[in-house]
């Protein structure tokens, strides 16, 4: 009986202490490594594979040296638009013009572990820098020929990505572009255009534009893309009774949203819920050439996909991650500068 009473007091199966907060990494934790700026790492890559002339597209570089980069998180995948990427911005440089950002190819839900403003350290040794159509990123070696590198797996992340302190976002973290300065600030036609790629950029006073572009692939905007096919307002109807007339492609100008999900006919099942990337065009006015024209490209998984693109001609301030999509390996004629929104609230109508 005594034993019975004795063990009745046992009840520790579910008493757990709260784990201590994670270690906050600082430069001191990487004393044995060479801390390089993101600018220097980008330069290292583009010295080996010059950016100009698109010679770097598809190239990769494995880092064998014990190099560490650090930067403040400027992207958020919370809205599910930015996918498996984390953009970090390094402005711990003596000259503001040397501030640079780079894409880390990670997992989903990065905002949970690295909210905007978090300082992140990346041990590059063993990782691979790769240029995918003009955008440099940090990843692991890819086994697929069409990718210069791949996303880090969970184990890779544990080994290479370290979380530092939580910092406040400042004005200096955002590059501001206007109709007057976009050519110089965004370093068009220079050999180091890559320096601004991946940065958080605020485009002030840019206008939404519906219609056919005269640059790049001369696409009609807005358009929607899935399964290797692009659909614009000239595309045939989707043969699916679930899609009402007003949501057919030919009526895009009436419903244009940042992205879309449509039930596409699929063998075997009655429908397949198919996400479409959406492309919206914003311009500073000169629609005949690439500079000053930007495509806000939005994932069909984005939570704000059903938000409407500002109507044709609407003037907005727009803050987004600035990226490049090189359309051709041989020349820049089909390039497009694409913008990835962290959240739809970063598009603000100004008139």
């Amino acid at each position, binding site marked *: *009986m005594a*034993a*019975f009473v004795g*063990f*009745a007091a*046992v*009840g520790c*199966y*579910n008493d*757990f*202490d*709260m*784990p201590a*907060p*994670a270690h906050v990494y600082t430069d001191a934790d990487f004393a044995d490594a060479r801390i390089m700026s993101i600018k220097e790492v980008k330069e290292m890559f583009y010295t080996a594979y010059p950016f100009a002339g698109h010679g770097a597209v598809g190239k990769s570089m494995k880092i064998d040296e014990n190099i560490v980069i650090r930067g403040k998180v400027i992207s958020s995948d*919370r809205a*599910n638009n930015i996918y498996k990427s984390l953009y970090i911005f390094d402005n711990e440089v003596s000259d503001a013009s040397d501030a640079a950002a780079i894409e880390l190819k990670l*997992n*989903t*839900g990065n*905002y*949970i*572990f690295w*909210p905007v403003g*978090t300082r992140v350290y990346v041990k590059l040794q063993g990782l691979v820098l790769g240029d995918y159509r003009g955008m440099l990123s940090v990843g*692991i*070696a890819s*086994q*697929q020929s069409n990718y210069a590198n*791949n996303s880090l*797996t*969970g*184990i*890779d992340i*544990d080994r290479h990505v370290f979380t530092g302190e*939580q910092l406040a976002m400042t004005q200096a973290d955002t590059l501001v572009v206007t109709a007057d300065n976009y050519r110089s600030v965004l370093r068009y036609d220079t050999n180091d255009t890559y320096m601004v790629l991946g940065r958080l950029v605020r485009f002030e006073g840019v206008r939404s534009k519906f219609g056919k572009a005269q640059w790049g692939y001369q696409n009609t905007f807005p358009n929607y893309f899935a399964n290797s096919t692009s659909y614009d307002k000239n595309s045939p109807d989707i043969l699916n009774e*679930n899609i009402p007339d007003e949501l057919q492609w030919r009526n895009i100008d009436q419903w244009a949203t940042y992205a879309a*999900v449509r039930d596409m006919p*699929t*063998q*075997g*099942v*009655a*429908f*397949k*819920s*198919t996400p479409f990337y959406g492309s919206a065009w914003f311009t500073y006015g000169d629609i005949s050439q690439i500079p000053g024209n930007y495509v806000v490209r939005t994932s069909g*998984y984005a*939570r*704000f*996909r*059903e938000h409407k693109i500002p109507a044709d001609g609407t003037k907005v301030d727009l803050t987004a991650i600035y990226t490049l999509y090189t359309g051709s390996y041989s020349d820049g004629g089909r390039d497009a500068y694409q913008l990835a929104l962290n*959240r739809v609230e970063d598009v603000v109508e100004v008139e």
Partner: protein
Amino acid sequence: MKLKNLLILALSLVSFAAYAQEGGIRGRVVSRAGRVALDNVKVTMTPGDATAVSDAQGDFLFENIPAGEYALTFEAAEFEPLEIAVRVDRMVRDINTVVLVPAAPQQVLDDSIFAEFDTESADDAQALPTSLSASKDVFNNIASYKFSEMRFNVRGYDSQYQDVYMNGIQLNDAVTGYTPWSLWSGLNDATRNQEVTSGLQAAEVGVGGIGGTTNIVTSPSQMRKGLRASVVSANQMYRFRAMVTYASGYQDNGWAYAFSFSSRQGGNSYVDGVYYNAYGYFAAVEKRFNDRHRLSLTLLGAPTERGAQQAAVQEAYDLVGNNYYNPNWGYQNGKKRNARVRDNHEPLVMMNYTFDISDRSKIDLATSLRFGKNGYSALTWQNGPDPRPDYYRYLPSFFVLKQDPMSAGLYYDAWRANYMNIRHFDWDEMYRANYRQTDPEDEATYGPGRRSNYIVEERHTDQLDWNFAANFSHMFRNNSRLHGGVALRRNRTEYYSEVKDLMGGQYWANVDKFAERDMVSSPISAQNDVEYYLRHGHAYKARTGDKINYDYYAHVFRTRGWLMYEMSFGGFRANVGGEVGSAALWREGLWRKGLFPYNSKGNSDVQKYFTYKVKGNFSYRFSGSHAIEANVIYMQDAPEFQSAFVSPRTRNTATPGIGTEQVLGIDASYNLRLGDVKARVSGYYTTMKNTTKVISYYDDVAATFTNFAMSGIDKLHFGLEAAVSVPIYRGLSFNGALSLGQYTYDSDPDYVQTQDNSARIVSEGKVYWKNFRVESSPQTALNLGLSFRSNKNLFLSVDWNYYNNQYLSMSPIYRTDAVIDEGGMSMEDLANIRRQEKFGSAYTLNASIGKNWYVQRKYTLGFSLEVKNILNDQDIRTGGYEQTRIAESDLTSSTSYQPFDSKYFYMFGTTYYLNLYFRF
């Protein structure tokens, strides 16, 4: 056993003088040890089926019986049943002393034996053997206990086909139909008195179904008087059990009472992260007002917390290096923590009234209430990568499919070395992520505080179950008997989830994350509780203990009335009767769900079903040794609540094609009882028609969460059972049992697959699985055993068991036209996917030893030790299931799919169970 029967036969051959002119039988029942008088021994006389109960002096008496040959059966808890033949003339025959032998020191099953099998897809309760009771039938005794190691189901039936009663009230779960053993789990002593019928035989308390009936009698006057205490050391389910029980017997003032307490603690030797923290309590009191009226009150409960094991894919087992890997746990601050914990406490209170109207008629009234909490915890998360360690993307095979050998190698090495505890949950990391959740967007919506991304939720099925039963029996002058009753059941089960642990965060937002992802047009779609949202402008900020995700009642109201007529003439005996009843099922949503604002709150349409049973039991006894019997039943029953609604978490919609289920069962047996030689051979044939099942899963082809509702599922079970028990020499006996069955799906059911978010039909058609095997139980099982009982109370046994024809539980999805067609897979690939996996045959060797000592003819001290799987075979699969999801493969040029690997359970290696007991 043999010695005992010789003694009895010798005694019964001696006849003594008559005391009266009418025929009768009198005697005294004593225990072999110390010749102590045994009260409350039930003595049944056949033909005539008169019963008597021995009094405090052990005496019993039958009077006014015609001359002839009778069989007397003696039954008492913890004693071997005994049957003797008595010839009666026109006087009362005194057979003097009848000696009962204590039952073998064999452990009585409790549900914990099966508790390690814990999955959501293959529900563990469903996999319980259908016969847990220590039956007196020579076959069922072996099948229910010795085959339990292999999750053997007698005749392949699921547990809902076994009727389990307590004191005349049927307690099978009102919502699932499953047997309710967990309600009194660990209270073995208090629930030891059981009236068991097997197969199609009707019971004293009801018509019964096809899987036998067990009525547990908890009346304290029926329990063996005295105190007993036992301590168990084991390594299979728990490490330690202690139990103490006391029964007063009838006091002079007509009161009797009994109580029992038990506790089970600890884990086992094979699976990490599992444990028992379980208690049991039982109290019963009974008052005999006079010879005719008795009233009793019983309260019992088994507050149980236990960490569960999850099945895993073979790849994970191989990487870890054993078949007992449990993905459910991880370290938190260096201490093992299991995410999946069952925590239930459902007290049962019951009142019984018995009115013995006359020696031939009686009425029993009973009412019961079950209430309390029944939770099962799980880790849940709002966003980000799946934290489960064995998620398919974290296993090397995923990277092989992705043609990434480098990562495959990295993960292989990491799993082998358990690099950074990759095999387990990373609780610390999840806490630390929650510490960081102070997103301005959340603060704008919900105010200050950390919004947890990871929590432990606890999914509840909390029952309020009220029962009433009134049974009567009357024996006519010709010794035929009519018995019957009415029963009412009203059940309201609340299904909800609640926050169990915020894991370092400060609140959980009560939104539907799947709807939030898929239905982005309006924030209302993602609301679990729209009305709260409309009042406050945001979802509820749930703290620990608050309800989240879903909240609804399952309502069940059932009535039934039954009547059996039992007669016998000569050696022929028949028991015929039937039951009619009704079942009403409806759902009552407590929240208005954003996805289905007009079909989620309030009452659904009431589904009404007419139920009935027609049953006949017929037997013919050629002599005291040979008998045959045949039984038949046809019954129509209502579907279970969980099959009746297509997505009860979200809405009131009934399952397409829902209807009553029909069961036809026929069996026939030959029984032999020649001295101590016992044997039975039976054949059975059962069809179950028009059952319904709903599965909810993420469909990778349609890329959406769906509900897959099947109707018109038919099953066919037939087979042969044989068992024998033969004394060999001086206490040494041979026992054996064989179960040869074939359990198949007998139709290609219709299915309708709907999108969970919108109720739209994704696909519909047929599931092609006719003639495929019914899963769960080995369809061939063989036992060969030797047992020895010395006259010094030593008991030894050794058993060899063999199993074959066990099949993996199938996912119906792979067997439809809709699936896996997109990439134009070859017929061979499709055939491979649709093939049903058969497990290899297996055998085990088990042994037990026990001994007890009588101290001063008053106390009993004893032990029993059972060792199972002595050959320590750790590769015996006892069950498993196909996963519903399929994975896209990059290995071929066109898109192709392959099923996720199946998950398996394995029998433990060598285990022991040592029980030390004391009683007086």
